[in-house]
């Protein structure tokens, strides 16, 4: 590790307009913001990690209730949303590529598409949420869960309570995921405006890269949420 590049002496290079005073070069600044962003993502992994742990434990304790409850989720909508989110990740990297090749309008175009796809994801998610309210699958006083299954007695209060835990986790996990997307879209809107003003080019586009990392991370969370929440109940008929 001793061979890592160390910072150069003060006053070595003329200051770039995007170079903060504590750094000596744009490279050092970029390396720092990249590492900083990754460390932030590590905190995000651990933040969602607490929820994944709760999921693993309760699924282990109540496999049947979890499978039956999962079975009521809308798999096609989940799958379409997965595709949409993957598409938004693609447009996000293309926005950075556009910056690298100095295509200003391209940056704005791809950021716009990313925002659009992100919003589409949230739109579909809200349709799913509404469905849950209509079928009384939202944990709380009105919660009601009667699985269609030959193996289980139709009204089983124990099973209903355990299904409520599944839906609690479902709403907390997808809700926090959606919150992360809303924050991401907010940042993307700001970046789109700044890109339009010509702030980013091949030499400096740190904010685009860092937001991209965040956006892809949110994508990865969904890549795990989709099979864990939607698909595990396929055989619980």
């Amino acid at each position: 590790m001793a061979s890592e590049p160390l910072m150069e002496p003060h006053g070595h290079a003329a200051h770039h307009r995007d170079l903060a005073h504590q750094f000596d070069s744009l490279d050092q600044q970029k390396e720092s913001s990249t590492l900083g962003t990754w460390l932030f993502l590590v905190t995000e992994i651990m933040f969602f990690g607490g929820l994944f742990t709760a999921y693993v434990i309760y699924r282990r304790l109540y496999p049947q209730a979890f499978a039956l409850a999962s079975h009521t989720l809308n798999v096609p909508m989940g799958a379409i949303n997965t595709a949409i989110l993957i598409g938004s990740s693609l447009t996000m990297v293309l926005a950075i590529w556009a910056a690298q090749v100095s295509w200003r309008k391209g940056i704005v175009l791809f950021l716009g598409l990313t925002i659009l796809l992100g919003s589409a994801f949230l739109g579909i998610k809200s349709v799913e949420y509404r469905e849950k309210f209509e079928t009384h699958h939202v944990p709380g006083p009105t919660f009601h869960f009667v699985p269609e299954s030959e193996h289980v007695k139709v009204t089983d209060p124990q099973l209903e309570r355990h299904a409520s835990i599944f839906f609690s986790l479902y709403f907390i996990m997808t809700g926090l995921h959606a919150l992360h997307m809303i924050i991401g879209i907010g940042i993307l809107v700001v970046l789109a405006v700044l890109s339009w003003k010509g702030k980013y080019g091949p030499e400096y586009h740190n904010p685009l890269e860092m937001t991209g990392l965040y956006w892809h991370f949110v994508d990865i969370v969904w890549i795990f949420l989709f099979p864990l929440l939607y698909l595990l109940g396929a055989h619980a008929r």
Partner: protein
Amino acid sequence: MAEHVTSRKVYFLVFAALLILTGLTVAAAEVDLGAFNDVVALTIAVTKAMLVLLFFMHVRYSTRMTALTAAAGFLWLAILIGLTLADYASRGQIFPVPGK
């Protein structure tokens, strides 16, 4: 340090692979593999996550430090889940002491 510019072709290939894997995981869930359903679903999810990490998040072209940071995040998540699970998996199990 010159920045690595990934060609668009790579991005589109990764995108296609991710879509195919999404289809695959939905299809695989329809087949009843017993305990292996989880294994298949998680293997596909991990593969997808790796593709996003390596190509979209540029870990492939980044410093070793970046890769190490990301790996540490997932390793610590594994510690959290693993040791917690160790408790639940061994609860209530009392094995007879040999010779008694």
